[in-house]
């Protein structure tokens, strides 16, 4: 029980940590509250539908079967083939991740052309609207990823034998570590400082000759790519694509709460928030065994709890637990 809890917690921490960092790049660093970030998560998740089809082509198994409608047979035969060929598995994994990140980044770049036309706050709901559309398409269109029912995916770590679950877990943490390093480098670069300048005073940045629109676009594109990665990792971890799981509560509002609690504009704060919140949510979902006497489902309490935390932190501690540090610039003496 405890081991399962720890593994589940760490895996979710890795997934939501990446999402929180991606959202923090846009909200904390740039000042663009992109609550439609789950658009890219869904796009990444739906891209996972590519690799089973590629694998079906490669192994030539089950020519008459369709991946979605004959899902159990296809997955069973693909699992057998993939468990004996580690090279193909790793190749497919890399291809899927790269394709998903490129597609998500492209979508992020494309929609900035509409989003930046709107004034500050209406942007926010417009991006939610766009994301809801992609979610509706994912949930309704059955032939690609099973619609609202979802599909199972073949196991890409089957070649590890009995350690396949552990392999998946270690891969997840490895990717998480790399992403943290990338974000630290990216956010402490001159580009990251330019983003903060834009957040503080966009006309001033323009006066200094910076192309602010282009900078914002690049930042959104980078964050979108990592959001796409989140979708891939989530599907990989649960070995299934269920488009209905990628809703706004879990993949936009919770990460926002994590950032606000941890500290906007700081990487450590975002990670702290992600850790605390993932732990609390996992704990709340375990509570029903102790609180069976309540007349309603405990998962509704989970969402009230989210709202209360958001409210209290934004009212009384808007900078979070680990606020952003302002380092004064070093002035060279002549």
């Amino acid at each position: 029980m405890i081991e399962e809890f720890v593994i589940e917690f760490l895996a979710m921490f890795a997934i939501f940590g990446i999402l929180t960092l991606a959202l923090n790049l846009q909200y904390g660093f740039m000042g663009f509250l992109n609550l439609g970030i789950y658009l890219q998560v869904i796009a990444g998740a739906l891209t996972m539908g590519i690799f089973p089809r590629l694998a079906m082509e490669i192994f030539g198994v089950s020519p008459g079967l369709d991946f979605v409608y004959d899902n159990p047979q296809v997955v069973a035969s693909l699992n057998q083939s993939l468990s004996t060929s580690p090279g193909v598995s790793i190749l497919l994994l890399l291809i899927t991740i790269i394709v998903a990140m490129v597609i998500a980044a492209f979508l992020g770049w494309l929609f900035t052309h509409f989003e930046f036309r709107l004034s500050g706050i209406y942007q926010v709901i417009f991006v939610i609207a766009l994301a809801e559309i992609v979610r509706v398409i994912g949930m309704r269109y059955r032939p690609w990823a099973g619609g609202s029912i979802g599909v199972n995916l073949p196991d890409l770590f089957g070649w590890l034998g009995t350690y396949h679950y552990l392999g998946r877990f270690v891969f997840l943490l490895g990717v998480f570590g790399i992403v943290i390093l990338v974000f630290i480098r990216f956010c402490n670069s001159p580009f990251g400082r330019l983003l903060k300048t834009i957040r503080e005073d966009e006309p001033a940045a323009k006066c200094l000759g910076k192309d602010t629109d282009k900078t914002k676009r690049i930042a959104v594109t980078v964050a979108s790519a990592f959001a796409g990665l989140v979708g891939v990792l989530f599907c990989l971890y649960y070995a299934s694509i269920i488009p209905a799981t990628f809703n706004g509560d879990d993949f936009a509002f919770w990460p926002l709460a994590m950032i606000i609690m941890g500290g906007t504009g700081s990487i450590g704060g975002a990670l702290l928030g992600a850790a605390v919140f993932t732990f609390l949510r996992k704990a709340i979902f375990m509570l029903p065994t102790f609180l069976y006497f309540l007349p309603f489902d405990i998962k509704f309490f989970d969402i009230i709890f989210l709202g209360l935390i958001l409210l209290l932190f934004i009212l009384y501690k808007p900078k979070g637990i680990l606020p952003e540090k302002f380092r004064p610039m070093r002035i060279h003496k002549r």
Partner: protein
Amino acid sequence: MIDIMLITGLVLAFNLSLQTMGFSLQHVTLGIPNIAHGVIVVIAAYVAYLFYLVGCSPYLSLLVSIPVGVALTLVIFKTLLYAKKRGSSKYALLIITLAYAVIFFGISNIFAAQVIALSPVVTSYFVLNRADFSFFGLPGVLLVSGVASFGLAAGFGFLLMKTKLGIAMRAVIENAPLAETQGVDTNRVIAIAWVFSGALAGLAGVLYSLWFVVSTKIWMLMLIRVLCGCVVGGIDKPHGAFLGGFAMGLSEILIITALAGFLGGWITGYRLIIPVLITCVVLLIAPTGVIDKLEKIKLKRFKIK
């Protein structure tokens, strides 16, 4: 006999115009879109369901749902004022409404579970069109929502243009600090605007449940439709938003019906896409809303004369 899809489109159009009017009124007074608006609509719909299950007419539930809508809106409003006093940024205020939306969503789920437990058939969806009255073969909700939407819009327009309170409200919308120097109690005026839009939300929820299927999950759908209507019509002008909501509701149903005739019934599942696509196109042509363009055309014609 009017076509059933036309009735559906009109009912949705009247309903959305009620909601967009309230939504944009909240935006022009405080400068923040109230994300929790859609959840309040859903809670009002469940109040109507509770009345139906007890055996009363859903129209009677307006006596409860409007005060509930007003009360919930006032809770949000008071918190926003408190946060403004503490010097929160605009994004912080937006996140407060988001937090309230999430809290109210949880509460609406708990409330819905209690209400559904009363019903003989346990489903998470409901529609009350059987409890509606009919006149000349048309559903009563068409008449009621039409009269309510246009009547309230006209009444509110009269209030804005002719009364002292309306002038104060317009002054606050134009420039709040300046209005304050002229002796207008801005907080009171804004509170009246918010109370009005809360009442509109309560009304819209009850009328929505009389024709459309309601579940607690539709608040996001509602929010997106309302936002699209507002953006198309003109966010900063309640009368523009009213027209935008009306056009949006009608066009969503009529376009999807026409498309379903061409392409087959599967397309109806994607009907949420139509408002957003229209919004995208309108944003490219008229970023500040259609009403601005219309007013400019009027001005030009005036100058030529």
